[in-house]
C-alpha cells in the first residue's frame, strides 16, 4: 500500500550532533496521528526535517511523500507539494501585511488561485471560524501579536492552504484555555474540510480531546519506541514516559 508519507531508516541531526536515530514512520492519507515524547526527544526536529529545514542534515535514510523521494527537495518545493509545518514560534516579518502574505502564498498554488473578491470571502469565513478580528489582516505578519494570536494565524494558513500533510509542532504550547479551544477547533475544521493528514506533535493531551486520533507514536532519545492507537495517549497521560526510562510529567492542562 502506498502511504502518504514514508520515512525509512532516517538518521539526521545538525552539523555537530546526531539527533534522530533509525526513525521509521509512515502516515496514510486522511488520518490523524499524534507524536508524543519527553522534552528533547527529537519530535520538533523530525517535523523540521520533514519540512526540509536546511539547519538539519539527513545522514542516511529516506523521506517519501506521495511515492516521491523528497529528501533532496527544497522546503518551498515540499510546501507546494502539500506539506505544511505550523511553527512553535512563528517568525515576525516587519513590513509584510498578513493579508499580502496570505494572498501571495495562495496564488502560488494553482489549485487555490482565486479572484481578489473570492479570496477575501474565503479569508473572512476562516477568520470567523477562528474568532479572529479581520483588523489583523492589515497588520504586519506576526509583529506585535500575542502567542495565542500567532497560533491563530498559523491555523488561518492551515485552513486556507488545506495541505495534504499538516505537521503541528506544539501549536498548543503557551496558550490559554480560550486560545487552546480555537486551535483545537481549527484542527478539527481542517480534518473535516479536506482529506489531509494531521501529525500533531504535543505534550498536551487537552488539545486532542476534539480529535479522533488514528495512531499515536512515541519518540524517546531520537528513536521511535512505540506505535499504537489513541489508547496510548491515555496511558501516557496517566503514567508519563516512565516505561521508556524517562521521568517527566505530561501536561494535561
Amino acid at each position, binding site marked *: 500500500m502506498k502511504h502518504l508519507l514514508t520515512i525509512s531508516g532516517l538518521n539526521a541531526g545538525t552539523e555537530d550532533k546526531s539527533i534522530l536515530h533509525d526513525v521509521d514512520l509512515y502516515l496514510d492519507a486522511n488520518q490523524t496521528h499524534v507524536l508524543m515524547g519527553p522534552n528533547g526527544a527529537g519530535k520538533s526536529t523530525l517535523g523540521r526535517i520533514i*519540512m*526540509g*529545514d*536546511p*539547519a538539519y542534515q539527513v545522514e542516511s535514510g529516506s523521506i517519501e511523500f506521495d511515492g516521491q523521494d523528497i529528501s533532496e527537495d*527544497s*522546503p*518551498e518545493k515540499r*510546501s*507546494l507539494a502539500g506539506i*505544511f*509545518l505550523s*511553527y512553535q514560534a*512563528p*517568525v515576525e*516579518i*516587519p*513590513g*509584510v*501585511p498578513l*493579508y*499580502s*502574505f496570505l*494572498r*501571495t*502564498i495562495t496564488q*502560488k*498554488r494553482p489549485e487555490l488561485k482565486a*479572484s*481578489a*473578491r473570492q*479570496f*477575501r470571502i474565503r479569508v473572512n469565513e476562516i477568520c470567523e471560524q477562528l474568532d479572529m*478580528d*479581520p*483588523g489583523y*489582516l*492589515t*497588520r*504586519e505578519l506576526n509583529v506585535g501579536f500575542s502567542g495565542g494570536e500567532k497560533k491563530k494565524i498559523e491555523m488561518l*494558513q492551515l485552513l486556507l*492552504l488545506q495541505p495534504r500533510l499538516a505537521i503541528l509542532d506544539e501549536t498548543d504550547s503557551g496558550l490559554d484555555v480560550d486560545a487552546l479551544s480555537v486551535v483545537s477547533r481549527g484542527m478539527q475544521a481542517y480534518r473535516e474540510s479536506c482529506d489531509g493528514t494531521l501529525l500533531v506533535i504535543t505534550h498536551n493531551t487537552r488539545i486532542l480531546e476534539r480529535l479522533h486520533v488514528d495512531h499515536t507514536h512515541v519518540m524517546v532519545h531520537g528513536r521511535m519506541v512505540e506505535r499504537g492507537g489513541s489508547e496510548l495517549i491515555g496511558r501516557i497521560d496517566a503514567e508519563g514516559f516512565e516505561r521508556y526510562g524517562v521521568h517527566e510529567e505530561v501536561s494535561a492542562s
Partner: protein
Amino acid sequence: MPTITTKLNTPPAQTWNYLKINDVSVELPQIDGDSLTEDDSQLANIACGCGEGAARWMFQIAANRRTIEIEPGDSEENILVDIDVDQAERSCVDLIVGEGAQVKVLVIAHGQEDEENLSSALLRILCKADSKLELTELVSAGASSTHLSGIGMELEQGAHAEVKQYSLGAGLSSMGLAANLVGSNSSLELALRYMSRKQEKLDVNHAVWQRGTSTKATIDASGVLADHAEKNYRATIDLVQGCKGSAGSEQETVLVWGDDVINRTLPTIMCSEDDVAGDHGATIGSVSAEQIEYLAARGLSQDEAELLIARSVLDDALFHMSNETSREAVLRVARDMLGEEEAAELAETSAALEGAGSNE
C-alpha cells in the same frame, strides 16, 4: 532666483561628519526680506524634525497656510493636506486637537513629472490631553523633484499619536519629524515605510523627546533600497530627566536590493533618567535566515520572499490610503516597478480588503 544652502534633518546628537549622516544640504530659493510674514501662530515654537531654519523657510514659502482647530471631544476623520509636487505646491498647516478629541489626517505629496520641482509641507500639531491623532503621510513624486516634509508635534497628558509615513519615491524625499511627549502617559507609535529605487534619495530624521512620566514611544522603520538609491535615516529617542516609568524603542529593518545602494543609519537613545527602558536595533541586508525559512515553508523561494517584502511596502501603503489621489500615487509606483498586471492585482486586493483595517 538666488538660493541659500540650508541644512535639514540634523539629529539632536550628531556623529562624525565624515560619516555624512549629520544632515542633508539643500539649495533653497532665497526669500525676499520684504515678503517675510510674522509667524504669530501659537504653534510657532513647536520643533519640527526638519530643523528650525528649514521650518522657518517652509513657513515663509508656503502659499497655503491654515490653522485647524478640533473642539474638545469632537471627532474629525477627513483632514487632508494635498500637495501637488508637479505644481511645486507648498503648504503649512497648524493643527490643534482639543482635549479628548480624535482626528485622522492624511498628508499626500504626489507627482509624476521628471522636472526639478520643489514642494514642501510643514505640519505643526498640538495634541491636548487625552486626544488621539492618526496621521498618515505619503510621498510619491517624480524622479527629479524634491519634496520637503517637516512635522512637529507636542503631546499633552494621555494624548496618543499614531503616525505612518510612506516614502515611495522622489529625487529627494526629505522627512523630518519631531515629537515632544510632555504629558504623562502620552504615547507615540511612529512607523516609516519606504521604497527607494533608481537614483532616488531618501533623507529622514525622527527625533522624540520623552519628558512626561510613563510615556511610551516606538519608532519602527522598514523598507527597501534598490538600484542606486541612497538613504539616510536618523532616529533619536531622548529619555529626559524626570520621565520616570517611560519606555522608548527604535527598530529598523532594511532590505538592500542591489549592490549600488547607499544606506546610512544613525539610531540613538539618549537617557538622563534611571527608571526608564530604552532599546534600539537594526537589521540591514537581506531577509534573515529565519524569515527565509518560514517563507520557504509556505512555498516561497528566496527571490519570491524578497519580492513579497518589496511589494508589501506598496500593499501596506495602499491599505492605508483613504482617497483616490493617494491610491493612484501608490499604484503609479506599482505599475512602474511591478508591471501593469501585478499593479492591477494589487489594486483588486486592496479594494477587496477595504474596511478590514478599520477594526484595528
